[in-house]
């Protein structure tokens, strides 16, 4: 009995102690518990993908291919890419933080379709099991892009199971996005108008549009690859007049917008944190909301910039180059508005804010180098070099992962009801920032000097920069392990968190930490927007863990 549990522990009933037992978790329809299931499984895949990354960096410590042979190296970077992209970067922020926070932020009891939410976690797990099977059965070496005809005609590795893994995980992503859109439209509390919606919700709304409209295209593309391998249909087969470029078009039609699936939710996190720790209303709320929608829409029109040297026509390349520049406009609006929000704000330097600083700087570098790559001349020079690798890791790791860590620290008191140790948090943030830059900045230089990606060996003159990069990756790994250790530690030993430790304005801070099963004890009625920091007092003394 739920009530009995409360009497025994003397704690307030919340989503964590409402019921007990494995079944109460595996069959839960509570969005907060499903978010925790996702948190555990996504962390697992993050460390698998990270393990492959460390092996790659270790191999690249020396110029010769000595730790692993070239064929094994091909598998390492392929599986690193697949695991990280499809099982960490795409689901992480929406499925963990979005799942947990969106209903609370809009004053709903749950997502619109709680059972579909649970189904999407099970699809993720089925996809994950297929991915693990792929790894254990000897891996796959198509690259994470499955380019045809390499993947359909020439490789004898586990392409079919890897394709199925991505396909199933894709439907998990579609269902999450569908759930968020319907929830945002239909489940808002009285008074929660579109103009009062937190930017975190706006960002997830934009992300969900991409998930629902983009993911099915890569799903059918992967089905066609599957049919080609298993049933000898030949849609991409050059021997039947099939066009390999068609595969690339279909693949990037999703996989370019997919990078916005990864980064937009992170931008939502940063908007919340920057306001809270500057004690100021967001600068240009409407522009910020429109910017995420703008990125989502324009993001659908730029995919062929991945194919500038693949044989598309010059005119197509010019158009896609121009369209790619357009994405820079809403992205720049975001960066300028965050800095304008901080201007003359009363800034405090807690861990989430440190990550937010890191995000803004690193995302700016990642975004601007994206514009280098959008210009046709430079792109020809640096295509398939480490310059591209450094660029997307600045956006994905420096942007998305840093934002994810920022959000985890910011909302950890709400999720767990405990405070994490602030000193360790700051140390980890510093390690991540230093380790990250040391890992990936040398790769910009390496790429510009002409070191190609996806090779296990390289000329000796590149060694110094590669050693720096590997050293940075080691620091980065420590920076990632630390939060996992102290988050787990804080669940038992951290100080009890109050409902609103940061003095934040969002609706999610109005309910207790951790929230009760139905999020609020009463139906909230919203009469303010999420950023009226003028009227909210500074937080009481934040409990600090030693």
């Amino acid at each position, binding site marked *: 009995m739920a009530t009995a549990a409360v009497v025994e522990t003397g704690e307030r009933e919340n989503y964590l102690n409402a019921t007990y037992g494995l079944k109460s978790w595996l069959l839960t329809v509570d969005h907060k518990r499903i978010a925790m299931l996702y948190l555990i499984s996504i962390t697992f895949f993050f460390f698998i993908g990270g393990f492959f990354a460390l092996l790659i960096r270790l191999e690249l410590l020396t110029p010769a291919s000595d730790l692993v042979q070239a064929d094994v190296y091909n598998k390492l970077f392929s599986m690193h890419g697949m695991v990280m992209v499809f099982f960490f970067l795409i689901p992480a922020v929406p499925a963990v933080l979005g799942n947990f926070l969106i209903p609370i932020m809009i004053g709903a009891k749950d997502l*619109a379709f709680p059972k579909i939410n649970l189904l999407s976690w099970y699809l993720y797990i089925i996809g994950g099991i297929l991915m693990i099977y792929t790894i254990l059965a000897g891996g796959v070496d198509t690259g994470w892009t499955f380019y045809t005809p390499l993947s359909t005609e020439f490789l004898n590795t586990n392409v079919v199971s890897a394709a199925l893994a991505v396909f199933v995980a894709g439907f998990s992503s579609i269902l999450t996005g569908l759930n968020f859109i*319907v929830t945002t439209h239909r489940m808002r509390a009285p008074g929660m108008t579109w103009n009062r919606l937190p930017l975190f919700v706006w960002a997830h709304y934009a992300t969900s549009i991409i998930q629902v409209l983009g993911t099915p295209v890569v799903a059918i593309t992967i089905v*066609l690859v599957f049919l080609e391998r298993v049933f000898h249909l030949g*849609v991409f*087969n050059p021997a*039947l*007049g099939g*066009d390999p470029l068609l595969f690339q078009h*279909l693949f990037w039609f999703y996989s370019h917008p997919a990078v916005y699936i990864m980064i937009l939710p992170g931008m939502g996190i940063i908007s919340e944190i920057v306001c809270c720790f500057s004690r100021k209303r967001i600068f240009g709320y409407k522009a910020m909301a429109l910017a995420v929608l703008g990125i989502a829409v324009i993001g659908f029109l730029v995919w062929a910039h991945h194919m500038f040297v693949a044989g598309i026509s010059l005119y197509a390349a010019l158009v896609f180059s121009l369209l790619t520049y357009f994405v820079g406009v809403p992205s720049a609006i975001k960066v300028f508005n965050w800095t304008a929000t901080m201007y003359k704000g009363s800034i405090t330097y807690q861990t989430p804010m440190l990550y937010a600083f890191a995000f803004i700087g690193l995302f700016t570098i990642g975004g601007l180098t994206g514009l280098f790559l959008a210009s046709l001349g430079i792109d020809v020079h640096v295509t398939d070099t480490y310059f591209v690798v450094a660029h997307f890791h600045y956006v994905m790791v420096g942007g998305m992962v840093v934002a994810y860590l920022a959000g985890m620290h910011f909302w950890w008191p709400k999720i767990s009801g405990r405070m994490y140790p602030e000193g360790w948090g700051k140390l980890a943030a510093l390690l991540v920032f230093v380790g990250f830059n040391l890992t990936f900045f040398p790769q910009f230089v390496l790429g510009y000097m002409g070191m190609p990606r996806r090779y296990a060996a390289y000329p000796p003159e590149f060694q110094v920069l590669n050693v720096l990069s590997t050293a940075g990756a080691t620091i980065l790994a420590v920076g990632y392990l630390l939060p996992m250790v102290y988050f787990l530690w804080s669940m038992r030993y951290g100080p009890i968190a109050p409902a609103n430790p940061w003095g934040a304005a969002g609706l999610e801070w109005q309910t207790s930490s951790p929230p009760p099963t139905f999020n609020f*004890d009463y139906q909230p009625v919203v009469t303010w927007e999420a950023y009226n920091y003028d009227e909210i007092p500074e937080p009481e003394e934040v409990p600090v863990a030693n």
Partner: protein
Amino acid sequence: MQTSPAAVVEAHAHDNPALLHHFATEGQQKNAASLGMWLFLAQEVMFFGGMFCAYLIYRYKYFGDFGSASQQLSITLGAINTAVLICSSLTVVLAVRAAQLGKRTALVIWLLLTIVLGLVFLGIKADEYAEKFEKHHVPGPHFSYHELLPGQEGKPAAEQQYANPRHAEMYFSLYFAMTGMHALHMIIGVGIFAYLALMAYRGKYGAEYYTPIENSGLYWHFVDIVWIYLFPLLYLIDRHR
């Protein structure tokens, strides 16, 4: 004015049993389900869209060969199947109407009729597939194709031009991928309607709650519309000569 979650759940218990705990009203629940279904269909449009895109590109590139391969299909069977599907859309609409009016027997009958029409379609489709196997028109190692390009029949034998068998194989690859994916959706739809018919027989649906019937109907209409595009695209290439 605080209400505990348990009290909220209890308050719902007096209302419609189909109203789930996290919705305030039945209208909100119905609107949410309806929007969810439309989004799912948008997802389906993009899913089939990838194949339609591939088809249109190759049809443009290899028009003559696709025209030749298209004439291997039976227009009669395709047209019958089109009519069958349009009729099944009608029976679905009538099922939704019967649910709205609370006519249980009529609802079950219309649902069963829809299933029958769906199975007729699948049966005819299976027969067409079987013919493709017999003629070695299934892509793969056993594929063989030796047919004239469209408009070559009247010419002297020495001048006649034949279709490129590789491109014809591409046509049949797309034919099987597209109609196969469509048939898979039909099979799923028949399964859904079988479940709905059972639940309707048990009296689960009525004038106050028929959302599953309506949303499954939307799904069925979508599957029909896919076929309405597939039929001219695959069967009617270059038939006007």
